[in-house]
């Protein structure tokens, strides 16, 4: 029972972090049709910016400034890189973001070196929040969960309840019509890409000190966000949310159970389970849990 409750809690926490990571990716895809391979690199940039800024002016300003900085870089990338690649089709876009991921990884290594930086959880959020059986639940994890849920609510409200959201959705489904009505569609795209990058950056600021901030962090999370987005359905925000929680909980429980099948214990393969789920999903239901189009 004790293990069940802590595992459930751990699973939900991990799932919510995955959602923070994948929301920006699914946003960019649903709005622009661009599968952004450099998404995890923006996450890494967020962590490094968060580290650099928090050592100067503290964690809370960094929480705002670092995502803004990452978002600006994202917007510039869209304006001067992706937009040109867009003219020659989706394959160029894909290759462009693919190359960008390597450029960012190498740039980070040149600036901050290849060893992890000492990015620490702020003192005000350090320490236990409550004790469950023998285990403590850290305040910082609760903070992560709060930000993640806040992100979902804000995104959902922003896209469905505000004028900006209306224009964005209009530019997505009927770009010609939106343009004819006087809206600057390329600028909307730039804002969406920048916004998606900023979300990844925010996840980086929060995830970087919860785990490790090193140049390998983009690579280690780069694949799992695609799993979340594919399982949830490309372009579906709620789908990504459900899939994140699902994968987080499944992975955590796979570690917790002591069950062996033909000498192969489940916990040994736990980190690979999300990929099994993705492959199965692509075979059985290619559009994902809540997707609107085929992947």
């Amino acid at each position: 029972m004790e293990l069940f409750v802590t595992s459930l809690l751990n699973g939900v926490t991990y799932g919510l972090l995955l959602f923070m990571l994948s929301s920006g990716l699914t946003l960019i895809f649903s709005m622009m049709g661009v599968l952004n391979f450099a998404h995890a690199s923006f996450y890494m940039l967020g962590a490094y910016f968060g580290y650099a800024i928090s050592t100067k002016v503290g964690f809370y300003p960094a929480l705002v400034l670092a995502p803004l900085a990452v978002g600006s870089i994202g917007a510039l990338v869209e304006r001067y890189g992706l937009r040109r690649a867009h003219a020659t089709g989706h394959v160029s876009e894909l290759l462009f973001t693919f190359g960008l991921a390597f450029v960012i990884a190498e740039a980070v290594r040149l600036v901050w070196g290849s060893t992890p930086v000492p990015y620490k959880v702020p003192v005000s959020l350090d320490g236990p929040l409550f004790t469950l059986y023998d285990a403590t639940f850290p305040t910082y994890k609760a903070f992560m969960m709060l930000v993640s849920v806040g992100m979902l609510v804000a995104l959902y409200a922003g896209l469905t309840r505000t004028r900006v959201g209306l224009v964005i959705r209009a530019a997505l489904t009927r770009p010609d019509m939106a343009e004819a009505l006087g809206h600057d569609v390329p600028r909307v795209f730039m804002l969406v890409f920048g916004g998606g990058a900023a979300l990844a950056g925010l996840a980086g600021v929060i995830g970087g000190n919860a785990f490790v901030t090193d140049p390998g962090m983009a690579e280690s999370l780069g694949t799992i966000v695609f799993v979340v987005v594919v399982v949830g359905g490309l372009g579906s925000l709620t789908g990504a949310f459900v899939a994140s929680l699902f994968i987080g909980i499944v992975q955590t429980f796979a570690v917790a159970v002591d069950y062996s099948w033909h000498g192969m214990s489940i916990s040994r393969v736990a980190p690979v389970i999300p990929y099994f789920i993705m492959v199965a999903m692509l075979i059985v239901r290619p559009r994902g849990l809540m997707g609107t189009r085929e992947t």
Partner: protein
Amino acid sequence: MIVRSPMRAACCALVTLFATAASADIKIAYIDPLSGPMAATGEHGLHELEFAAEQVNAKGGVLGQKLVIVPLDNKLSTQESQIQLQAAIDQGVHYIVQGNGSSVAGVLIDAINKNNERNPDKAVVFLNYAAVDPDFTNDKCSFWHFRFDANSDMKMEALTSYMKEQKKVQKVYLLNQDYSFGHQVARAAKEMLAAKRPDVTIVGDELHPLAKVRDFAPYVAKIQASGADTVITGNWGSDLQLLVKAAKDANLKADFYTYYAGVVGTPPALGDSGVDRVKVVTYWNPNSLAANRTAYIDAYKKKYGAMADPYTGSMHNAIDLLAASMTKANSTDPAKVAKAMEGAKWDNAFGAVEMRATDHQLIQPLFVLTFAKNDAKARYTADGTGDYTFKQDVRFEGPATARPTTCKMQRPS
């Protein structure tokens, strides 16, 4: 996922070009990860190797020739390593250095054995500074392979000898990476604890994939539920940092007995959460050195920064023995040098060491240390930190760490 790093590749290619140009030098190829998730560890090793070679060169080199290091990036992949080995051989390299990953070392030993049999004029000697799978100096031993780190059984022997006296240790949990080295650690821990502490129960034996887990909270929850008071782990790099971090978050009370808590990036990640709880078995204990043996460390810190720690002492030992053996054999011919290296005895900074002739395993003093706040102002802090250090719990002389070998060494006639 393979991360390519064009800049580094270009840089390596350039270094290679220069190395080829100066053909009178003794070239030593360094085959280790210089890109990808484990690049930090690989890069640290390269610094130490270059520094050790510089020290020899500053004294006039070996037989009037300079040692030149040729860095080759293997991305921690066995396939890339074989390609890089061939590239090194084609450049006329006769000495290679590698250490990260017993998976890689095993492949290199096989490839070198084959190469040296087919092309005796292109023979290669393998200086292994950190791959610790015991097989390499037992059933898989080779005349061309020399290991300068203590193998994982020797380290476990030292660790369990220390644990024998620790009455606190009652319930032990084993958490290791799922590859040859992690399996060896788990096996040795079970065998040796059964012999030395039959009263101890093993409450968990878990393997997780190498360098894939980001959130160790589920594993820690399981350790907690098992009631373990002690965790033994061979984890290294981010796998150790994240594990200790998760343990701190969940307030896990257990002590950690590790192999690699001193390795680059780990001490800063440990921080306060590791104090008095994280132990390490190692051949490196700079604070135990006499004042006249620390010049090397101080020179290293001068070059790479005050918080850098040249903890890969085996690199220093390897280059020293190589240089001494070339001088002794009065030749750079790999077969002659390898013969001269066999059975060599000398004093390194920590005491008497011996390159055991029967299996090419270096026998050297080992320490069990505990991560601690540097309140007593010890001279040397843990790598990357200013206020933490490793305190000595116990020291084992070389002969006490030696283990019998099953090696039947095949020597070239």
